């Protein structure tokens, strides 16, 4: 299951019919990225695809007589990829567009269970497109849409123009409960940056922690972001009485309103929020790019000042929504209210009522290797069918290197990663699956600690 770099990467594109897979595919193919891409399509797309070798292949699911679900593979992919790899003018990249009803498990397993395929191709990542207008009904109704969410490395929330922002925020929170590993991107017409869906190396243990320090998406410590266009000059934030005597805030400059910029800004602010807050009293100036805590103890309306040096967009990443404090941004010179250009809420918690869910275990300390092995093999033997994906890094007692692992159902692979060095030794595991007993699994893991 180890993947070296000279293999042809393969991206799996899943999502229900009408979620925008073909639109995204066309976008990938029309972009000037210098890659020769072959596309394997399991359903005829809504839109024609130019400029690429497109192979139509009917989905063929091959289960094995031994009944093991992790041995189930996709015969059509073995056949088509097997022929593609024979050509000398090989492709640089393969995209597989599955049907809306495809189970991503066998697709992923094909790249680990078939020796000929795994020696030539590496699974780069699973991208799931979500029709945000319809997904809530689909999730209740079909296992496939749920599994497509659960297996994804990247979830593209598409058709956001048809759904209210607050609904999108709620939807994202619901899907994040199901899959804590995935990156989320929002788009209207599947117009996402190509590098956010291709070349993710999501299954590559060598790359796993180089690109990102963690397998988890951050929990946002702020609830609301508003973006405003500002000119050089003095501004004030006015706030009425609200639910708290204080509110944490970070003001970011040069914040673009597109989804990727907003998420980058948000991730930056997560780090700023981790620093101690500077307490700001009413009528004081709020420093920019710093974690502050606005003191709201006094009664009545309060004002805080912001000084802007240039034409820019500023973002307020606030602990509470603007609504809760009737918060407004006013240009001091003319006393005009600055309209919020874009706002979104970051729903911190969502009630967990889906069968499919994900959770993470994060613990300091070292693990007993034998106990760990026994626990993992028992877990996979008994729960492998229900565990869709897992990833993590571990600190094993007596080992100077980090141990990284990942898995799809019962297919597990792991290897030593770089040395811990001065980093604190800790463990992080993420599991995605159906009806996982979080409490029991946590206990099982903790029993492995030295």
């Amino acid at each position, binding site marked *: 299951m180890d993947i070296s770099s000279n293999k042809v990467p393969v991206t799996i594109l899943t999502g229900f019919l009408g979620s925008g897979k073909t639109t995204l595919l066309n976008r990938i193919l029309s972009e000037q990225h210098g890659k020769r891409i072959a596309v394997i399509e399991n359903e005829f797309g809504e839109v024609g695809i130019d400029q690429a070798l497109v192979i139509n292949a009917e989905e*063929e699911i091959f*289960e094995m007589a031994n009944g093991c679900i992790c041995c189930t593979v996709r015969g059509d992919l073995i056949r088509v990829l097997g022929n593609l790899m*024979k050509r*000398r*003018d090989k492709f640089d990249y393969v995209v597989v567009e599955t049907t809306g009803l495809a189970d991503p498990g066998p697709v992923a397993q094909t790249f680990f269970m*078939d020796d*000929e395929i795994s020696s030539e191709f590496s699974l780069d990542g699973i991208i799931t497109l979500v029709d945000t207008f319809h997904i809530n009904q689909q999730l209740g109704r079909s296992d496939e849409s749920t599994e497509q969410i659960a297996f994804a490395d990247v979830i593209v929330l598409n058709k956001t123009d048809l759904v209210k922002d607050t609904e999108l925020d709620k939807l994202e929170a619901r899907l994040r409960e199901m899959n804590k590993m995935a990156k989320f991107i929002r788009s209207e017409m599947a117009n996402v940056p190509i590098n956010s869906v291709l070349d993710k190396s999501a299954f590559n243990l060598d790359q796993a922690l180089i690109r990102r320090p963690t397998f988890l998406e951050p929990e946002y410590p702020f609830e609301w972001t508003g973006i405003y266009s500002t000119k050089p000059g003095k501004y004030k934030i006015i706030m009425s009485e609200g639910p708290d005597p204080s509110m944490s805030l970070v003001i970011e400059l040069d914040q673009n309103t597109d989804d990727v910029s907003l998420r980058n800004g948000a991730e930056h602010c997560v780090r700023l929020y981790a620093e101690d807050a500077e307490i700001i009293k009413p009528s004081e100036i709020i420093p920019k790019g710093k974690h502050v805590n606005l003191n709201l103890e006094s009664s009545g309306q309060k004002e805080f000042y912001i000084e802007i040096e240039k034409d820019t967009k500023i973002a307020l990443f606030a602990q509470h929504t603007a609504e809760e404090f009737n918060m407004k941004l006013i240009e001091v010179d003319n006393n005009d209210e600055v309209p919020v250009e874009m706002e979104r809420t970051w729903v911190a918690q969502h009630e967990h009522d889906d069968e499919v869910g994900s959770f993470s275990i994060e613990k300091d300390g070292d693990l007993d290797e034998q106990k760990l092995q026994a626990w993992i093999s028992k877990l996979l033997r008994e729960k492998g069918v229900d565990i869709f994906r897992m990833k993590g890094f571990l600190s094993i007692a007596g080992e100077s290197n980090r141990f990284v692992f990942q898995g799809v159902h019962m297919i597990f692979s792991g290897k030593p990663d770089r040395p811990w060095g001065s980093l604190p030794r800790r463990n992080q595991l993420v599991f995605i699956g159906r009806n996982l007993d979080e409490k029991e699994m946590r206990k099982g893991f903790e029993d492995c600690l030295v």
Partner: protein
Amino acid sequence: MSIMETQPQKILRSGWNAYVNDYAISGGWNYNGQVLIICDAAGGIYVFDGKSGEVIWSQGQVHEGGILSAAIHPLTDRFATGGQDGKIIIWNTCQKNREKVIDLGDGWIENLSWSQDGEMLAVSCSRTVYVYTKEGNEIWQSSNHNSTVSNLGWSINKELATTCYGCVSFFDGMSGKVKQKLEWKGSLVSMVLSPNSDIVVCGSQDNTIHFWRRSTEQDSMMSGYPLKPSALSFDETGSYLATGGSEEVTVWSFKGNGPEGTSPLSLKLHTKPITTLAFAHRGMNLASGSRDGAVVLWDLKSENEESGLSETSVSDSVSKLYWRPDDKALAGLDRQGGVTVWHV
């Protein structure tokens, strides 16, 4: 599995070699051994003089998207090619002539096979099988199989054998009527019939080999292979079955009550997985090729003293090995487009 110490001697002598334009995917000797026909993955055909290795004729891009399969007529100067363009072309070997072009539309033509008497050509396209006269006129077509047809073969009684996921089917070659269905829940990636056509052997995606005795429909399974056994070959008597599926050539004996309850012979010289196996038309010489380009000639004359006679190599993974009809030469095709002929 028993292990034998083996010491190869020089038996394969260099003949000629040539290169085609891409992965040498399929082909074979014509019926009289005078020419060697090679098809490459890019869609090129090369007809070589069998003795000198000179190109008699060649043509590129005969199938848009590439050639997937080829079959050489057993008795006349004809061969057929099939490709990603959904077309079947019947060629005249001597004249660079397309005798017939059959267009089946969108599907890939992945398998072609001439009946042993040369009267019929079977073709698979996706889940359907078509049977034509040797001139290319359709006789019948099958209904859809469970999945894409993975192999075709003819019995001595003009029955067409097909494999797909979960099933081996035998059709009457003339009428297309299903005569026998042998079921097994697995993806059958390879198939070979014993010379008397009573035994049908399939390699399966789950790294096993499954075989049936057709007269009794009794089936057995051989497991323990680390990889898919995609290379299979019977010797002319049907006594020995050579199988790939690992870095060893595993040979099962069908003599007596075997192979059930017996241990196979393990032929160990290759260091990479076996890609192709070919018993000579007569006698006990077996040629094997592997992913690293190694080619080994084995002599299995005596059941217990098998030995590697000769070891040589080509430039890359061996895709096919073809014995000349008189067994005095062996052709090897490889992934880089190399075509090598050895005298035996």
